[in-house]
């Protein structure tokens, strides 16, 4: 019993990945490129291991940085994590380079008294739900989100109350 239809259609040629532009192999060179692109907005970085790189950028540059990584470096946004650091929120954008398996974690810190950051949903459609979820659970406002209504919390959930946000001790 042959599997005729499958073997014909299965393509493994390299040109199928037409959208992804030039992917970079070396983690250091990725960091260098981002540094060049962002200039003063680049704060620091450390390479935890070959495939895990953490870069901290200023919150003003998040959108610019995401656009650069997604469109020019050809990475994919895996998810966005929000961590409550008591007086600040830490947003971590996990970008994946599908050729090399490099996970590039772009961190930015935003103050809790004014939790605002630029949205990347216009550039990356996949970030839409992710950002709405963070808005619901932590109250981080994504400026420029195309559809910032509630995704996961109910309508009778009280305003200014976020289930995963820590209360500050007064």
């Amino acid at each position, binding site marked *: 019993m042959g599997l005729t239809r499958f073997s014909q259609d299965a393509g493994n040629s390299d040109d199928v990945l037409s959208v992804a532009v030039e992917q970079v192999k070396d983690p250091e060179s990725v960091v260098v490129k981002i540094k060049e692109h962002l200039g003063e907005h680049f704060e620091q970085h450390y390479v935890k291991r070959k495939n895990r790189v953490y870069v901290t950028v200023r919150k003003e540059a998040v959108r610019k940085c995401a656009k650069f990584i997604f469109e020019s470096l050809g990475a994919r946004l895996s998810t966005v994590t929000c961590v409550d650091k008591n007086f600040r929120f830490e947003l*971590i954008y996990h970008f994946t380079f599908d050729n090399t398996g490099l996970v590039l974690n772009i961190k930015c810190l935003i103050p809790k008294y004014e939790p605002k950051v630029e949205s990347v949903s216009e550039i990356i459609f996949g970030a839409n739900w992710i950002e709405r979820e963070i808005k619901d659970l932590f109250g981080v406002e994504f400026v420029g989100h195309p559809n910032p209504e509630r995704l996961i919390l109910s309508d009778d959930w009280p305003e200014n109350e976020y289930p995963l946000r820590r209360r500050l001790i007064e």
Partner: protein
Amino acid sequence: MPETIIPIGPYHPALKEPEFFQLIVEGEKIVDVKMRMGYIHRGIEFLASKKTIHQIPVLVERICGICSHCHPTCFCQAVEDAGDIEVPDRARYIRTIIAELERIHSHLLWAGVAAHLIGYDTLFMYFWRYREPVCNLFELLTGNRQNYAMECVGGVRRDIDFKMSKDKILKVLSEIKPAILRLANSIAEDPVVKARMVGIGVLSQHDARKYCVVGPTARGSGLKIDVRICEPYDAYKEVGVDMKVFTEGDAMARTLVRIHEVLESMEIIGRAIDAIPNGPIQVELKEPPKGEGVGKVEAPRGEDIHYVALNGTVIPERLKVRAPSYVNLPSLTPQLIGHDIADAPIIIGAVDPCMSCTDRMVSIVDRKRNDKVILSLEELAQFGRKNKNPLKVRR
């Protein structure tokens, strides 16, 4: 033409799990989709902040019953990444074998459900029949048909005696392989199945990239995304994986990707059993790991990613779970628009949405909404009798 809203769900026979899709249709054509979540929300990320890193594998195993090996593996990988823990070789191989068996079980389960969605119950029964021996293998290897509880940070909890079980595994796999090929051909060649699946729910490569989809959904749209190849974890570097990519992007392409993966998984298991080394299955943790780590696993539905921040205690500071269905579900919007209502179940099904995974952290309490567009099932029922167009009445 007036717009009508057809609710699919939350409790609907096509969706074995509750979820609420609202198809806004003009006549028979879908013009917009609204999705609602939270029907299976259990607050897992909240619960994880109260449990130790040894308890969390048990918790994340219950995010989703179908990928109940991937989530614990992913969590353990994240912790191992944070604490620089080296997993013994034998443990890596055991993880690989269980993961691939799980992929076979999951894809056969999905194929059955997809056949059921287009009303082909005979095929559904056949696929599930051939899934049953795989469940037996799980029982033999791990002691349970589902929820295998094999993972722990730093290795696996139980050793497998491959001297005893090797023949059994290979025998079962060689028995179901010709049957799966036969069923696969009956899908690929049946004219009615083709009419229901070819060209249905097309997700272009451009959209696939914009929506950041993963797994078979991405590979059916021509994106080469497979964590097992681009960042080999467990024993995949040694045993090797072959990736099949289809460029059509329709429901049929995704089906074929999955069937190929089942066949490939069988090969991987064979190679892994041959090459498995002897040795310890677990490393002892001297002290709780510290730092942050990212774990990535290729679940049957795509890339599963866990982020964990550890502060030197056994209770993690933050666990973030992103299941593959969470990014695959939004991509339904471009797929559904322009199709018939009758195609909606198979389009939704072809993405293989795992609502339990997706809903692990959200919460909705009520569906009473004052929004003008969204009507509940009962409201629609009342309007249905008096007026064909509920929207008009509401506005």
